[in-house]
């Protein structure tokens, strides 16, 4: 068997990138696998039971929840994005499908997205210049789709100074640029 294909990050590098501007750190993450999980018609109870068994949380709308093996955030009625460690779940959809059988529709999403983790003492100043999410009033675990400089993203609040952004992979450079100029603007 030939040498495995090498992977490139969404920004086009072999390794993920971290940028620090003023108090804000923008950390590209390349180690998270992602899949969508949607409940098939009439199979909710079954899916919830199977998820519980698998250690996969199915949080309420606009929420993120971490679990023992998987974390997940709500994206649409009856649909979640499920996160797992890429090193153990490179084929996350392949791992999830057997757990849910035909009760759920599962689709690989890992490389549809670029993930940036944002860190600062308080990210309010940055985010209020980027997103219409009411970040100050959002509770930890809040997860929502939002638009940042015309780019549709998912924003997850882990804390006042800790946020995860998922943006479309193809626009990774544009999204990073938006984050950088805004960080400079408040630096």
């Amino acid at each position, binding site marked *: 068997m030939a040498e495995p294909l090498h992977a490139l990050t969404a920004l086009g590098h072999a390794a993920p990138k971290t940028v620090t501007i003023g108090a804000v750190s923008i950390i590209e993450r390349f180690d998270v696998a992602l899949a969508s999980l949607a409940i098939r018609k009439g199979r909710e109870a079954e899916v919830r039971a199977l998820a519980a068994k698998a250690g996969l949380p199915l949080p309420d709308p606009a929420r993120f929840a971490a679990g023992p093996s998987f974390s997940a955030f709500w*994206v*649409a*009625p009856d649909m979640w994005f499920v996160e797992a460690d890429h090193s153990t779940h490179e084929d996350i959809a392949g791992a999830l499908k057997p757990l849910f059988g035909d009760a759920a529709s599962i689709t690989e999403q890992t490389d549809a997205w670029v993930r940036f983790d944002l860190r600062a003492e308080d990210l309010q100043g940055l985010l209020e210049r980027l997103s*219409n999410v009411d970040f100050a009033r959002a509770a930890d675990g809040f997860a*929502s789709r939002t638009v940042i400089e015309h780019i549709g993203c998912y924003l997850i609040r882990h804390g006042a100074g800790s946020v995860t952004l998922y943006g479309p992979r193809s626009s990774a450079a544009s999204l990073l640029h938006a984050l950088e100029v805004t960080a400079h603007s408040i630096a």
Partner: protein
Amino acid sequence: MIINHPILGPRDAQEFVYLGDAALINRPDGMTAGIEAFHDYLYVRDNPAGEHRELWYHEQGDRSWLVVTRNTVTHEIIKVELARDVAKAAGRTK
């Protein structure tokens, strides 16, 4: 504008894509209805100055189609429902 999403609460209307009159839910069955019925369905509108039930899609959100009851003169929004629920209530199935 702000649309009070039945699941997500208030969201900026900018996140949505507008389609039009919610009467579009009532699509005739193509195997039984003819051109005239489809013409009336697709092309003719009440277009009221006042309360209007209309379809909005939360494209930059949770992808729900909503039925928003909105006053077209004041832009006041009176009611917001999931289009799927409205469609089911109207007897739409598969």
